[in-house]
């Protein structure tokens, strides 16, 4: 009870405040963009349509009306919260009047499944390899591993993805060139569908993992080497504690910052992986967010951001609540 009041409650309040601030800022930001969603629609119309100028101007007005952009920004802001609390994110402006929720709903499962797996795998691999590389730092495989991983780290996503594609989808056509699942396959629990999803997601996941492993590896190696000379590790080694246990100690004792990262990145997967999605033509949220930014589609930007904001804030909340578990020395207060 006391714990609830002194530890959990303030953090919940913080969580709410963070979401509030985050959402408000994200609400404001796109409005600074010089790109006006109506103008974007009009620009594309102007280049396609044989409509005359007079008519264009009228159309523009009625569009602005319908999208509610003529209103005062405060009115818009309060309306936005009113809608949001009802779970309604409003219509997409660039795809008017399709509801934002539907746009997101289409892409969300893909993004989540790809990024959840890639993030967790990348994290785990980085952690494990980093710990091993530090523990066995005198071994030559560890040195080679370090250089290889560090060489992969700065390779731009785009280049990495394209190289993977060229090799494994074009020269050796093992994996498909595009998409999240084979053409014509309908979502179902059939083996066929699942295999196809895995096959399509494989290269994107690998490309994300290969690049993201770098930082995890590097930081974990740094944390582990500091730990290695600490007394309790030395003592455990004198006592003949098994190597895997010691590796586990190292892993466990560096968990604090690493788990923080993991929680935040997991919270952040809702904003998608833009470049991977572009190169692999993967049906995720990243591309949608990017084009929404470009098109000044405020509603969509906020819509996606809200998920990401709540996700990251929750990640931060959870990790904050977990800190005392991760490092028992941290006090609740």
């Amino acid at each position, binding site marked *: 009870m006391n*714990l609830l009041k002194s530890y959990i409650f303030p953090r919940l309040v913080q969580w709410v405040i963070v979401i509030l601030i985050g959402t408000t800022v994200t609400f404001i930001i796109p409005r600074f963009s010089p790109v006006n969603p109506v103008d974007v629609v009009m620009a594309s119309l102007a280049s396609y349509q044989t409509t005359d100028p007079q008519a264009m101007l009228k159309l523009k007005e009625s569009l602005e009306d319908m999208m509610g952009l003529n209103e005062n920004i405060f009115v818009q802001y309060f309306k936005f919260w009113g809608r949001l609390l009802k779970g309604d994110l409003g219509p997409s402006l660039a795809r008017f009047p399709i509801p934002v929720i539907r746009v997101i709903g289409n892409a969300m499962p893909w993004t989540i499944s790809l990024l959840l797996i890639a993030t967790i795998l990348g994290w785990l691999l980085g952690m494990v390899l980093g710990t091993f590389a530090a523990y066995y730092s005198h071994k030559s495989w560890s040195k080679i591993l370090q250089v290889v991983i560090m060489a992969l780290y700065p390779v731009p996503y785009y280049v990495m993805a394209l190289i993977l594609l060229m090799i494994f989808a074009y020269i050796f056509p093992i994996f498909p060139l595009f998409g999240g699942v084979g053409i014509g396959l309908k979502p179902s629990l059939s083996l066929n569908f699942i295999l196809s999803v895995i096959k399509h997601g494989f290269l994107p996941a690998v490309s994300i993992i290969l690049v993201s492993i770098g930082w995890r590896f590097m930081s974990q190696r740094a944390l582990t080497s500091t730990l290695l000379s600490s*007394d309790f590790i030395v003592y455990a080694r004198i006592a003949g504690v098994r190597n895997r246990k010691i590796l586990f100690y190292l892993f466990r004792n560096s968990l604090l910052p690493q788990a923080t990262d993991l929680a935040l990145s997991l919270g952040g997967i809702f904003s998608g992986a833009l470049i991977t999605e572009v190169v692999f033509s993967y049906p995720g949220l990243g591309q949608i967010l990017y084009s929404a930014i470009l098109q000044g589609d405020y509603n969509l930007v906020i819509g996606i951001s809200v998920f990401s904001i709540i996700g990251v804030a929750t990640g931060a909340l959870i990790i904050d609540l977990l800190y*005392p*578990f991760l490092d*028992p020395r941290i006090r*609740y207060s």
Partner: protein
Amino acid sequence: MSSMNGSKLVVNGVTKIFKMGSGFSRINITAVKDISLEIDLAKGEIFTLAGESGSGKTTLSRIILGIIEPTYGKVLYRNKNIFAMKRNERRQFIKEVQVVSQNPFEAFNPLKKVESYLFKTAIRFGLARDKKGAIPHVEKALKAVGLSLAEINDRYPNELSGGQLQRVAIARSLITQPSMIVADEPVSMIDASLRMSIINLIKQLNEESKINFIYITHDLATAYYVSHKIAIMLKGEVVELGSIDLLTEPLHPYTELLRTSIPEPDPDKALEAIDKELVISKRNFDSDFACKFADRCPSKMKICEREEPKNYIVNGRIVKCHMYSNKGIKMTNSIQI
């Protein structure tokens, strides 16, 4: 400092409850329970805290130093609540009240050279302008503990032996010429001969410069040798408090147990195996009985199980034991000695 007048350190009804157990299944540990003390800084006292391992000595000392905040109660240093001090007051407090912590291996940053603490202390508290100017201060402090700058110069904590580290820690606390030093087992890792020279140093500092000490130790012989007062702690409580001479004729059964357990440096007088009952029978974190010592007390009465003993004043000391309910004067509020 004008803001810090008064000459007393007052510990007023301090209680510290730790929450233990990870996450949400937890027990509370009362490491320090309703302790009140008073030290007259002007007089220059050596005050010993002794008692069972885990009885809250370190915790109490850390509360006095302002490192941990008590759950209840407060600590006043020259009339100032140390947990509500302003920045400059706090700084002055730190200058006047110094610490020697229990484990010398943890007291120094393993990534830093130990001498840096000495120099920094000298420089930061305005004893010297720069490192060069600080050398005499540092040398002097080191010499007092049987070390020299040449010996520890350029060394990291792991390059020094336990006793050496402990001595460096003592030396560091001496540099600011504080008015009080809280020393948590400062000589536990030092050999008998050196130990005596350090104890002698403490005595000398106390007598000549009126430096107060809170001396936490298990070595009752040295405690007896230097201290003026002693508090015997048991499971967070002070069970007996008074002049150091109480060690020669303890009142509380626990003090008695302590005294008889002191081994003697004589192979012929080998200690007999202690009666197991006296030591562990029920060493739970929280005793089932109202009196914390009841479960191993040879003179346990019925009342000890039910009722927490009050503090009684007997022969000028305070004893927390039912045995003295008739002989002593019952104290109503905090201990005042």
